[in-house]
């Protein structure tokens, strides 16, 4: 009887149900039921997983981080209503694409700091968000602007755990002693971004 009552081809159900799921996402967007929107964004430094809430961009993850783990983390820390919605992410995607093509020098998007630490670390990240395109600052200077001039190392750690790299440009903070220093998303990316912005030559 199972066979008799199972006449629908798998491929057709797959296609039709995929379309129906897209309709669900569209309605969820219109009805503002999406607490967290995620989408993949292609970039010269790898496929980025970008997450946003109604308050702004909350997370940018490099491909080394397993997607499943990032989604689980978003569900646990923000809300389980995490939806994959590439179209809902279009404005952010466009800005990132323009940035990577060298046509955008600042992001016109709000930042949701929900996944950032509080206190000194948050102040470091907020100060970092103000460093202009094409210039750099030092860990010591960031610590000073965040109110603890001697906490350069702690400032470095805060930047290493930046939940929204690229958009909050932690790649623009380098050691006073020279070199480009560490980067949470692998040093080659930091070098690539500083070259894109013209601070590193050649």
């Amino acid at each position, binding site marked *: 009887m199972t066979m008799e009552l199972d006449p629908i081809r798998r491929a057709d159900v797959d296609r039709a149900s995929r379309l129906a799921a897209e309709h669900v996402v569209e309605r969820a967007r219109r009805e503002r039921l999406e607490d967290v929107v995620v989408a993949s964004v292609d970039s010269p430094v790898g496929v980025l997983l970008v997450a946003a809430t109604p308050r702004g961009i909350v997370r940018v993850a490099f491909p080394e981080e397993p997607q499943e783990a990032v989604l689980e983390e978003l569900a646990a820390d923000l809300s389980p209503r995490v*939806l994959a919605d590439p179209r809902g992410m279009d404005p952010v995607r466009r800005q990132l694409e323009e940035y990577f093509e060298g046509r955008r020098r600042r992001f016109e998007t709000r930042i949701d700091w929900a996944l950032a630490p509080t206190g000194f670390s948050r102040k470091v990240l907020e100060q970092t968000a103000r460093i202009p395109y094409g210039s750099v600052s030092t860990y010591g200077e960031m610590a000073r602007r965040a109110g603890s001039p001697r906490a350069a190392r702690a400032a470095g750690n805060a930047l290493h755990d930046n939940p929204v790299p690229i958009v909050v440009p932690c790649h623009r903070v380098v050691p006073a002693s020279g070199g480009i220093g560490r980067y949470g998303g692998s040093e080659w990316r930091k070098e690539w971004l500083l070259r894109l912005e013209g601070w590193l030559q050649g």
Partner: protein
Amino acid sequence: MSPPPFTRFMEEHREPVYRFLLAAVGPHDADDCFQETFLAALRAYPRLAQESNLRAWVFTIATRKVIDHERARARRPAPVEHLPEQTADQPPDGDPEIWRAVRSLPAKQRVAILQRYVLDLPYADIARTLGCSVEAARASAHAGRRKLREALHPDGSPRTTGGRR
């Protein structure tokens, strides 16, 4: 522990739920019922406390949507007879007669039949979906099966199995 990210939940249950709705309400209304099912799930999702059986939960919602759909359809004027059948989005193979017969069953029997024989769900899950006892779920499936047999083979043709003699 919070439930899994909604996008994963929908991905995991998308196919079986759609298959169930396709069989329960037909190709024309499956997409609508699917949307209603997952939007209702999405609305309730953050309040979902440590739900151990998400599959049974989503089928409970889908079943409720099938029954809602049924009531709405009953209120609408009956469609004109002998309209051409939808052919383009008809289930591509299988016996259309069986599907018509399944869809003409009372809602409880239809749900029990579909969940048991199409989705292969255990009676415990079906009972939960229908909000009845396991015995009552089994009885609904049994009654549905008998009605189907009568509808499809009124003269007791050789395809009938397990008949009581």
